[in-house]
């Protein structure tokens, strides 16, 4: 309640006993932001469900998904979404619960896949049963996590990030070249197949039942995720879970409260590694091979994007994040899908940012007029600039031809425009309100020009990662706690 303004009015009486209690502390046990309205109702109802039931909220639609769609869609969207989600859930324990920035996480994932491959593939002619192999893989990966994590006891925060990033890189170098190592006693052993990887990894074989094919694997993954989620819901409310969160909020205060900080950090790290190793084993059977290229920085960034989108520490948010991050790039593969997504995002941003409506209408009209003017001038002065045409043959693409510039055989113009665009966005942020209003239409036009002529052309190459990188920066600027994460209200 506020007492500012000095208007002489008494503040509205607050219901319930509030005397002597800080308002925020009274409302929540943590220091968390609370939503109001529909969102708040949903959130509160969700919080009241028992942990197992919360998992069902996500598990039931996911279980129905393969029944309503084709095998190909289950493979393309379903399997990878679940693999990413399981990976992100494990990473969330390390980063979201314990606050350790682990950039070597993918190496544990790769280690799981390789180790399962060693236990169950023609490489060493081992064909272990899954009920034996999976626990062994999980324990071995967790042990590796322990080894990597031990020096991290000494590493305060950021050093851990670089040490683990280096570890991830070292892992890729190692599996790429391990076929050339001569061991001191054993002699030459081809552990990883080098750059060809381990091929022909067995499907999981539980007591004679083989988990083979898209749908059985999908359900296996779904059950695994549900079990891990239920486990985590319980861990979250346990002594350890509370200690982890205390540690993330303030390591020094946690230590003063006699929480064993180092041991808990290590525990979180090892837990995350175990989940990653398990996911790796699943991925090994899914891909029937372990290839060094699969465990590179690209995947690490994807998993981080999922976790950030979901919000640190929020487990259901991560499932949503996995769905978004794994299906959007798949959708973006086709330029027919990419264009509506891009323009939709821009339209949404303008709708949210530009108020009042009069200003919005004015800016859009200015943009359209600007486009026609530029097109007319270019057609008269430099016809070369309009000789190309938009990708696609639908109505929208043909309409764009009369409005947007499409230079022919002039990669240089487009490249320069891209660099100018980046510079323009940086400068635009420093400008005052008036200049922003005036310069917004040309900036949008430039953005669309670059999109149509460069980014859309390269949609399967660099574009998707560029958009991902830009998204990370923009998201951190707008909501440092992640999309679905809750802001922590500082009580000073």
């Amino acid at each position, binding site marked *: 309640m506020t007492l500012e303004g000095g208007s002489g009015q008494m503040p509205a009486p607050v219901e319930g006993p509030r005397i002597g209690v800080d308002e925020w502390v009274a409302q929540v046990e943590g220091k968390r932001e609370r939503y109001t309205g529909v969102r708040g109702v949903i959130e509160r109802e969700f919080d009241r469900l028992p942990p197992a039931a919360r998992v069902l909220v996500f598990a039931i639609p996911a279980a129905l998904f393969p029944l309503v769609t084709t095998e190909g869609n289950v493979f393309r969207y379903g399997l990878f979404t679940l693999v990413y989600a399981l990976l992100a859930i494990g990473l969330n324990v390390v980063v979201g619960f314990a606050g350790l920035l682990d950039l070597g996480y993918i190496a544990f994932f790769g280690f799981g896949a390789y180790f399962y491959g060693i236990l169950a593939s023609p490489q060493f002619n081992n064909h272990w049963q899954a009920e034996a192999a999976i626990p062994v893989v999980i324990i071995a990966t967790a042990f590796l996590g322990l080894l990597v994590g031990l020096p991290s006891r000494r590493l305060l925060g950021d050093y851990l990030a670089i040490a683990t990033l280096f570890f991830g890189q070292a892992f890729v170098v190692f599996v790429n070249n391990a076929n050339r190592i001569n061991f001191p006693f054993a002699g030459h052993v081809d552990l990883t197949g080098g750059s060809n990887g381990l091929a022909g990894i067995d499907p999981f074989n539980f007591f004679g039942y083989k988990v083979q094919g898209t749908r059985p694997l999908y359900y296996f993954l779904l059950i695994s995720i549900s079990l891990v989620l239920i486990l985590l819901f319980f861990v979250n409310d346990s002594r350890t879970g509370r200690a982890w969160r205390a540690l993330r909020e303030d390591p020094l205060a946690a230590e003063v409260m006699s929480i064993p900080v180092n041991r808990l950090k290590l525990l979180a790290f090892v837990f995350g590694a175990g989940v990653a190793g398990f996911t790796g084993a699943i991925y090994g059977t899914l891909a029937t091979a372990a290839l060094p290229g699969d465990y590179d920085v690209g995947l690490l960034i994807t998993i*981080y994007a999922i976790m950030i989108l979901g919000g640190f520490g929020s487990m259901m948010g991560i499932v949503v994040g996995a769905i978004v991050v794994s299906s959007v790039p798949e959708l973006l593969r086709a330029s027919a899908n990419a264009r509506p997504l891009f323009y939709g995002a821009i339209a949404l941003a303008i709708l949210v940012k530009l108020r009042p409506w009069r200003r919005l209408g004015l800016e859009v009209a200015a943009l359209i007029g600007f486009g026609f003017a530029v097109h007319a001038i270019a057609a008269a002065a430099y016809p070369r600039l309009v000789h190309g045409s938009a990708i696609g043959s639908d109505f929208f693409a043909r309409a764009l031809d009369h409005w947007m510039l499409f230079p022919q055989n002039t990669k240089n113009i487009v490249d320069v425009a891209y660099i100018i665009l980046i510079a323009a966005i940086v400068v635009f942020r420093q400008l005052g309100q008036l200049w922003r209003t005036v310069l917004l239409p040309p900036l949008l036009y430039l953005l669309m020009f670059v999109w149509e002529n460069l980014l859309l052309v390269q949609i399967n190459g660099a574009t998707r990662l560029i958009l991902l990188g830009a998204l990370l920066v923009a998201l951190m600027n707008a909501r440092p706690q992640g999309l679905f994460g809750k802001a922590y209200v500082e009580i000073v």
Partner: protein
Amino acid sequence: MNWSLFFDLTVSGLTLGSLYALIALGYSMVYGILKLLNFAHGDVYMIGAFLGWFALHGLGGPVNPDFAGAAVLVVMFITAMLGCGVLGVAIERFAYRPLRNAPRIAPLISALGVSIFLQNSALLVFGASFRDYNTFSLIGVKVYHVGNLFFSVPQLLTVVSAICLMIALTVFVARSRLGKAMRSTAYDREAASMMGIDVDRVISVTFFIGSALAGAAGVMFGLVFGQIFHFMGFLAGLKGFTAAVIGGIGSLPGAMIGGLVVGLAESYATGYLPQGSTFQNLYVFALLILVILIRPSGLLGKAVVQKA
């Protein structure tokens, strides 16, 4: 002992080491002031190498340049350093400044985003193929030797100019008013701002200098190794940070020594350790872990007492 191999390895280690030291300086300065791991630093170095390449080709190319070789070189360095400096300041404004009071992990993620963005923008604009510096005709291929130490011209140029830059930086930080402001900001940002120091400006200057040094290192890499590509920043950034940690992060002489240690270690590992040319990065990683275990604060770093 094969002394000529040893001297060859030493010279190439020193060359690599001065590159790493220049990169490490940028990391260390930024970390000292903001306690932020600037993941995008390696990519700034990559952009520097490309800016140098464009300056070289803007002046007529390496084979028959419009000016004398030395002038072309100076223009290349100035272009790369200025361009990268401005880029560094822009990155700080755009990606880090809004997050200065956010939880620690937010700027790290933002830095990761900038790094991906720069890398893939370079892939988009410059293409995936290697670009040749091909500067051998420009600066000569003559090899000098002092006893058994054989130096090629680019190697000599790199080591000497790196040392000059480091001396200039040390003098700047130790003697100038702005350098003093930087040191006090690194010591205690809040107190510095209460003493009337414009902390935002100091941070901008720090980013400018650090990124300019990385840009110079990028050009040097092109001169020595001849080929540049869009992904070169990742590993170089990793090694630069390793150097900064080994030397003691936040300490400028530490970054220089750390760079030389990492460069020499990598070079000797290539020559002497089993399968060194394949696993050199693994050996550097092992060195990093070893140093962290024995001296967590680095060779020249001071142990910090954690404050709330």
